């Protein structure tokens, strides 16, 4: 029920009994004073109310108790109309115009069917709010008009207060929203600072990747995984560690890494939120939050991003240590190959946790894979050595890779592994003799180089050549003065060498391969990559120029010795 409820009729229907004039005047005065008291109460109620509709309703519904007039409604300055009574009487269309023409004042208005109608201003401290329109069957008395005027004035004040209160409430609500947003920002900042502090502590404490995973798990409450670029698990924190740890295909992994590099932000990959940690292009780690319920919020993402930054720092530090060790190893290998004293070499090797006191040899590897980068060959050699379970010190050397190793292995198998790692191409290996002391390693290097060159020029079919097994070549290479050897070569091959030099031919090489293949035409032609008839032509040319019969055993022996000596001389000259 609303305030439209009408009063029980007792008081409203009061009439005055026939009395003496003094009594009548006294009763009238008492009634007027009683009405003022009632008006005071109505004013109190309106002033205390913060609901504009409630105020207007109370004012309108109190009118019948205060006199024979009524409040028809309220016309506000914004043009709106709020009815005071709801008796179905239509509001004249020109009423708004009438009210505007009154300005801030009160005045008569035209209401159809009403004997008297006035509009009283609803004023507030900030100006005119509108008008209260009251009407009566007859013109009200001065006292009654005064009551209407007072209730209009009180209604204006109460409405003004209510609007002010509503504005304050709206401002307070806005302020509350702002405060809430500020509190949220402060909370987020605080959490961000906590994240920063926690992970920074991990970064400086040297807890490594397990520490980073643990800190991130504690900050987010989710399991955390750190993987290397190939998807191998480096660290895990939290429950549910998969065993065995799943590993995706190479292609899928590469696709994921490319996506992470492109986006530079956390990426959802199934149940995981992942982010790349890559301090430099060749160093990559992957940090993953395991979040199957997809409940990670902004703070979790901040923690993940900060964790990735700390992981990048850790990976850079680890790579820096590795690079430094690698550089020190390379410097040591370089000095060993160039020649250094045993004591300092062994001390430096020990510092690198490498035992150089065992006999070592030098292995020189020449490779031409699809990629010509020396680093690729160096990496391929390292991996191949690991596969054949051989330790060693590695360095690039004159475009090749030199390995100082104590091991002895199947060098041909090593060569094939290198070729496979390079993805095809060529590879030759020369193995030097064993050295008891580090200071002897330059000799082993020379032997390895010589073996490499000899097998390339004189020893077809063998791509891994060990100097200690070179036989006559090793003897020839060991002769300090090669003058007599050179004379011997000129004696037997001089005419052919001159012909080759003059005609840019390959008669010495042809003869060499013919003799090394035991006079087999087909094998020789295949080695030289020429047709058999071409080979026969060249051999006839050799016979003509030398006047020698190749089938004569003595001639055959001397020519083979001469060609091997020539090869050795060539290799030694190349070395110099």
């Amino acid at each position, binding site marked *: 029920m609303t305030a439209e409820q009408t*009063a029980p009729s007792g008081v409203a229907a009061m*009439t005055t009994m026939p009395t003496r004039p003094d009594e009548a005047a006294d009763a009238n005065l008492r*009634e007027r004073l009683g009405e003022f008291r*009632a008006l005071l109460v109505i004013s109190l109620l309106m002033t205390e109310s913060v609901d504009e509709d409630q105020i207007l309703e109370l004012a309108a*519904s109190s009118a019948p108790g205060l006199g024979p007039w009524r409040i028809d409604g309220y016309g506000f300055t914004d043009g709106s109309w709020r009815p005071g009574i709801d008796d179905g009487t239509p509001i004249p269309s020109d009423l708004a115009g009438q009210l505007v023409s009154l300005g801030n004042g009160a005045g008569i208005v035209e209401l159809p069917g009403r004997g008297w109608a006035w509009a009283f201003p609803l004023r507030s401290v900030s100006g005119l709010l509108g008008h209260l329109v009251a009407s009566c069957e007859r013109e009200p008395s001065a006292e009654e008009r005064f009551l209407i005027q007072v209730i209009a004035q009180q209604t204006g004040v109460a409405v003004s207060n209510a609007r002010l209160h509503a504005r304050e409430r709206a401002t307070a609500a806005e302020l509350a929203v702002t405060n809430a947003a500020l509190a949220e920002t402060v909370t987020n900042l605080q959490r961000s600072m906590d994240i920063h502090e926690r992970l920074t502590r991990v970064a400086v404490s040297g807890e490594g990747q397990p520490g980073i995973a643990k800190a991130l798990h504690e900050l987010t409450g989710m399991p955390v995984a750190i993987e290397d670029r190939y998807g191998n698990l480096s660290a895990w924190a939290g429950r549910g560690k998969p065993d065995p740890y799943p590993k995706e295909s190479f292609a899928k992994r590469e696709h994921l890494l490319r996506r992470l590099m492109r986006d530079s932000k956390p990426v959802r990959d199934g149940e995981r939120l992942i982010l790349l940690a890559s301090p430099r292009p060749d160093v990559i780690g992957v940090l993953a939050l395991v979040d199957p319920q997809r409940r990670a919020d902004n703070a979790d993402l901040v923690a993940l991003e900060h964790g990735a930054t700390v992981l990048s720092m850790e990976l850079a530090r680890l790579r820096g240590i590795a690079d430094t060790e690698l550089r020190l190893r390379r410097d040591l290998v370089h000095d060993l190959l160039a020649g250094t004293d045993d004591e300092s070499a062994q001390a430096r090797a020990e510092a690198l946790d490498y035992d150089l006191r065992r006999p070592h040899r030098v292995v020189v590897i020449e490779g031409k894979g699809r990629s010509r980068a020396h680093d690729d060959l160096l990496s391929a050699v390292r991996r191949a050595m690991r596969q054949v379970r051989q330790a060693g010190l590695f360095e690039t050397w004159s475009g090749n890779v030199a390995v100082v190793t104590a091991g002895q292995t199947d060098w041909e198998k090593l060569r094939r592994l290198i070729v496979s790692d390079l993805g095809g191409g060529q590879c030759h290996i020369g193995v030097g003799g064993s050295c008891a002391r580090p200071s002897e390693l330059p000799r082993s290097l020379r032997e390895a180089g010589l073996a490499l060159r000899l097998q390339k020029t004189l020893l077809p079919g063998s791509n891994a050549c060990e100097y200690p097994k070179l036989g006559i070549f090793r003897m020839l290479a060991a002769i300090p003065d090669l003058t007599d050897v050179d004379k011997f070569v000129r004696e037997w091959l001089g005419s052919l060498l001159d012909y080759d030099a003059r005609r840019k031919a390959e008669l010495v090489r042809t003869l060499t391969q013919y003799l090394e293949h035991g006079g087999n035409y087909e094998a020789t032609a295949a080695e030289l990559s020429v047709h058999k008839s071409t080979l026969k032509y060249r051999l006839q040319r050799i016979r003509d120029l030398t006047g020698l019969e190749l089938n004569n055993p003595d001639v055959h022996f001397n020519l083979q010795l001469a060609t091997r000596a020539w090869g050795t001389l060539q290799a030694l000259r190349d070395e110099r």
Partner: protein
Amino acid sequence: MTGTVSSGIDEIDLQPGSHVCAFYRGDSDRDRLLTGYLGAGLTAGDKCICVVDSAYTAKRLELLPRTCGGPGPFDGQLDIHLPESTYLAGGEFTTSDMLTFWTESMVKAEIEGFTFCRLVGEMTWALRDAPGVEHLVGYESELNRVTSSYPVIVLCLYDLDLFSGEVVVNIVKTHPQVLVQGILVENPYYVGPDEFLRSAHA
């Protein structure tokens, strides 16, 4: 009894024989008035008689004596009624029946040994569609006569969310005291019961 008694509401003291109409908005405001008024009476050892509009409110008020820490005897100190057995007993409202009810209740309290009574009525029943409710204002006026001759204070509760401004005006005009927004408004010019009856019977 001479002097004033504490109403238990907003530190307002009342003269014995006072009949106050209190206006409030909503149930929580009503409960504040009821518990303050009756709590003070229970604590002071007064006989408290109240009529509330719902069984739910009555149930809650039954717990009130246990929450008062005063020296009162409490047993039988608080009578709680519903309109069906008081204002609207017999299905209609008659002023005389209701005044008789109050008078008998006060006499009974005196016999039981109580020296002072507090009456309170929630007037929302007057909005029901029942015969005689139109005599509400006359009843309120006539009640002034009854209360003036007993050691009693009376509180009539009107919900402003339910009663119109016209009722407020008429109640103020016929009552010597009105409690509104924590202020006791005196009306020395109120229409007394004799004058009201003269007017009503004219």
